[in-house]
C-alpha cells in the first residue's frame, strides 16, 4: 500500500487552526454509525415492528377495511376462531405440512449433499448442481403452474402416463385425498436446491486437515462422515431446521393458491391461507389480525423450543 503515510504529526500541526472543523468532524464521526444503520432500522420499524403491534391492536376490533369506524370486540376474534370449522381444518393442514415437509426439506437435501460430496470433483458436478437448483430460483407460482399442467385431470401428463398402464383418470387436484400430496410434491421439488446448496457449502468449509488426519489414522469414508463432517455441519443443519419450521407454511402459499385455492373442502388450506382468505377475500380484518398474532406467537414458541432442545447438540466451529 504505497499511499500509507505516517500522518500523526501532520494531523497535530493541522489541528490548531482547524479546531472547529475538527470538532465538527468528530461529531460527524460519532454520528456516522447511526447514520449508516438508520435507513435499515427506520424501514424495519415502520414495516415490520410497528405492523406487529398494529396487528395486535386490530385483532381486538371488528372491521371490514372499508367502514371508517372499528368496533371494539375484546377477545371475540380469538374465541370465535375455535367455533370456525374452516379455521380448524386450516390447523389440520398446517400440522400436515409441518409433519411432512419439515423432515423432507431438512433431510432429503442433506442426503443428496452427502451423495454428491464424494463425486464433487467430477466434471458433471456443476451441471448436477444447476439442474437440482433450478426449481429454487424460479417463482413458486410459476413452478406451480408447470405442475398444474402435469396434474391436470383431463390433459395432464401424469394421467396420460398412467393411462398407458391402464390406470383410470385421477382428479389429483380436486380429490381431497390426493390434493394435499400434490402440494407437498411441488413444495419438495421447489425447496430441495437451496438447502442442498447450504449443505454443500458447509461440507466444503470443513477444514481439510481434520479429514486428512482421520484418514491417516485409518478411518473409513463413513467414519469420517459421521464423526467429523457431520458434527461440523450441525450449525448449518440447525439453521436449515429453524428456518424451515418458520417458513414452510408461508412457502406453500403460492402452490396452494395456484393449484387448489385451499380446496377441495379446505383439504389443502393452512393457517396462512386461512389468514389470507379472511383478510383479503372476506375482509374480516380483525379476524385476520387475530390469526396473524397467533402465527407470530406460535413461530416464536417453535423457534424457542428448537433453540432450547436442539441447539445443545450443535457444534460451533
Amino acid at each position, binding site marked *: 500500500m504505497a499511499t500509507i503515510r505516517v500522518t500523526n504529526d501532520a494531523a497535530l500541526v493541522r489541528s490548531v487552526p482547524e479546531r472547529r472543523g475538527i470538532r465538527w468532524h468528530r461529531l460527524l464521526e460519532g454520528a456516522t454509525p447511526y447514520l449508516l444503520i438508520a435507513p435499515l432500522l427506520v424501514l424495519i420499524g415502520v414495516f415490520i*415492528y410497528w405492523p406487529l403491534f398494529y396487528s395486535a391492536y386490530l385483532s381486538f376490533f371488528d372491521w371490514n377495511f372499508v367502514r371508517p369506524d372499528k368496533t371494539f370486540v375484546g377477545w371475540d376474534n380469538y374465541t370465535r376462531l375455535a367455533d370456525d370449522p374452516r379455521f380448524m381444518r386450516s390447523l389440520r393442514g398446517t400440522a400436515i405440512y409441518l409433519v411432512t415437509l419439515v423432515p423432507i426439506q431438512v433431510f432429503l437435501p442433506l442426503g443428496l449433499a452427502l451423495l454428491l460430496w464424494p463425486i464433487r470433483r467430477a466434471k458433471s458436478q456443476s451441471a448436477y448442481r444447476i439442474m437440482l437448483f433450478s426449481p429454487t430460483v424460479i417463482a413458486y407460482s410459476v413452478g406451480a403452474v408447470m405442475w398444474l399442467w402435469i396434474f391436470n385431470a383431463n390433459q395432464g401428463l401424469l394421467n396420460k402416463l398412467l393411462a398407458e398402464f391402464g390406470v383410470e383418470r385421477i382428479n389429483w387436484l380436486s380429490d381431497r385425498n390426493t390434493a394435499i400430496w400434490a402440494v407437498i410434491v411441488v413444495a419438495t421439488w421447489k425447496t430441495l436446491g437451496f438447502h442442498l446448496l447450504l449443505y454443500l457449502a458447509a461440507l466444503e468449509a470443513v477444514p481439510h486437515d481434520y479429514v486428512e488426519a482421520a484418514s491417516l489414522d485409518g478411518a473409513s469414508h463413513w467414519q469420517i462422515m459421521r464423526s467429523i463432517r457431520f458434527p461440523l455441519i450441525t450449525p448449518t443443519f440447525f439453521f436449515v431446521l429453524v428456518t424451515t419450521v418458520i417458513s414452510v407454511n408461508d412457502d406453500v402459499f403460492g402452490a396452494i393458491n395456484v393449484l387448489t385455492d385451499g380446496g377441495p373442502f379446505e383439504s389443502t388450506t393452512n393457517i396462512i391461507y386461512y389468514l389470507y382468505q379472511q383478510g383479503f377475500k372476506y375482509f374480516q380484518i380483525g379476524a385476520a389480525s387475530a390469526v396473524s398474532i397467533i402465527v407470530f406467537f406460535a413461530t416464536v414458541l417453535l423457534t424457542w423450543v428448537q433453540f432450547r432442545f436442539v441447539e445443545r447438540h450443535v457444534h460451533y466451529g
Partner: protein
Amino acid sequence: MASMVTARQSAGAKRRDETGKLLVHALVIVICFLTIFPFFWMLSTSFKQADEVFTKDIQLIPLNPTLRNFPDAFGYFPVGHWLWNSFGIAVLTTLGKLLISVPAAFAFARLRFRGDKFFFAMVLATMIVPGVVTIVPNYVMVSRLGWLDSWTGVIIPSLPGTAFYVFLLRQNILTLPQDLIDAAKVDGASTLKLLAQIVVPNIRPAIAVVTILSFLGAWNQYLWPLLVLNDFEAKTLATGMQFFTSNTESAQLWGPMMATAAIATLPPLIIYAFAQKQIISTFVTSGIKG
C-alpha cells in the same frame, strides 16, 4: 475420496470404489431428471401447436414446432407489461436493499457504538417474524398512502426484509484483515471513505451474491404483489400467471400459458447458471451459523 487413494489399497478396492461412484452418478442423474422434467415439459408445450397439446398420447417433443404461442400469450394478456413490471420491481428492490444493507452490515461488523448489539439483535429478530404477520397492517398503510397498484407499494414495504443479507455481508466484512482497516484509519480516512474505498471493493463477491439473491427474491415474490397490484396491467409475471389458470378449463390456453411460464423462468435460470460457483463460495466463507 480420490485424493486419499494410497498404494496400500488393492486394485479390487479401487474397482469397487469406481463402481460405487458410477452408481452414485446414476442415482444423481435420475434425481436431476425428475427435477428438470417439469421445465422440459413446459418448454416442449410452449412450442406445440394446439392440436398436439391435446393429443391422447404423450408427445415429448413437438412434431411441428411453432413460435405462435409467444405472440399469442402477449395478445391474450398484457404479458409485456407484466415482464416490464417484474423487471423494474426486481431491479429497484435490489438496489434499495443494497443501499440499506451494505452500510448497516459495515457498521455492525467494524464500528463500536452505543447500542450496537441491541440494534443488530433487532435486525436479526426480524427473521422470526413471518412475513404474513405484517401483511394486514402494511396493506392498510399502503392503501392509505395511495400506493396500491404502484411499484412503490410493492418495493418500499419489502425493503426491510433483508436481515439474512445484512448477516451475510457482516460475516464477510468480518473476514477482512484488520490490517487493511487499520491502514486506512492511520491514513486518516473517514468512516465513510473506509466503507466506500476499502470495504466495498473488498467484499465485491459477497455483494454480487446478495444482488443476485435479492433480484431473484424480488422477481419471484408472490403474496405481497398479489395483494398490492390488482390492476390488470400492473401485475408482475409471477402474479399475472393466475389469469391463465383461472381460464384454462374454459379457454384451454395451455400453449400460451407455458410460453409465459418460459418467459418468467428464463431470466432467473440464466442468472443462476452464471453465478452458481460464486454463491457457493460466498456461503463457504460466511459460515452460516443459526
